[in-house]
């Protein structure tokens, strides 16, 4: 995998969706108010943790993460 990295995720939440956030190595990189996330982002070489966090308006959160290596 090379930079830029395409990050694509889909979410499902109860209540009203508040935001879907992309975090890379614990740093928030992107935030949208849509159930689907599709973005490309420049990342340095190495192994990184990509986490996507969805939140609804009451404040409940759901998270999924993958580790991927950029060459």
């Amino acid at each position: 995998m090379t930079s830029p990295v395409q990050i694509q995720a889909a979410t499902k939440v109860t209540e009203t969706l508040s935001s879907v956030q992309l975090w890379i190595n614990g740093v928030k990189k992107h935030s949208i108010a849509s159930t689907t996330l599709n973005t490309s982002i420049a990342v340095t070489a190495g192994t990184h943790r990509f986490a996507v966090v969805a939140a609804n308006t009451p404040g409940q959160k759901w998270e999924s993460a993958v580790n991927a290596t950029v060459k």
Partner: protein
Amino acid sequence: MQSESNLLQLANLSSEVQRRPYHNQYLAELPTFIVYPAVMNMSPSGDLFAVGGDSNYPEATITTSPPTAGLQIFHFNGANPITPGGGTLTTVSIDEIHWDNSDHLYALSNSTGKLYVYTVTPTGITAVPGSLYSFTTPNTLIVVPTITTSCSAPAADGVKICAPTVVPR
């Protein structure tokens, strides 16, 4: 397929089913077309099926009822029977049907010069804001998805990451 009663019905055949003859109970489970099926296309996720009807389709004379134009959706439910997704979305003749990877259905009607665009999911169908689109004597349509792969929502509440993917070692 066309049954002995001249009903046009939609069936999905697995290799297992193909070895068995049809029987009346199975035929009764198959949904019938409201429109005359002239064009059809499956969504990338494989769970939604769109059928376009053409009232001028040449082979429509094989049915006893008059051919019906329109656009109809079916739900493919895995091993469970196919279910119709409601009535017709439009009543004009449909010439082409395409899907992108974002749950959008595109249906082109050459005779009316209209392009219908819907967001279609297993739970609902809504017209995309701004559609329908008008064209002067359209002839054909191609859809190029900007999202390269389909990423459908998880079945339960949560987040599903489709990319980047981790290649097992």
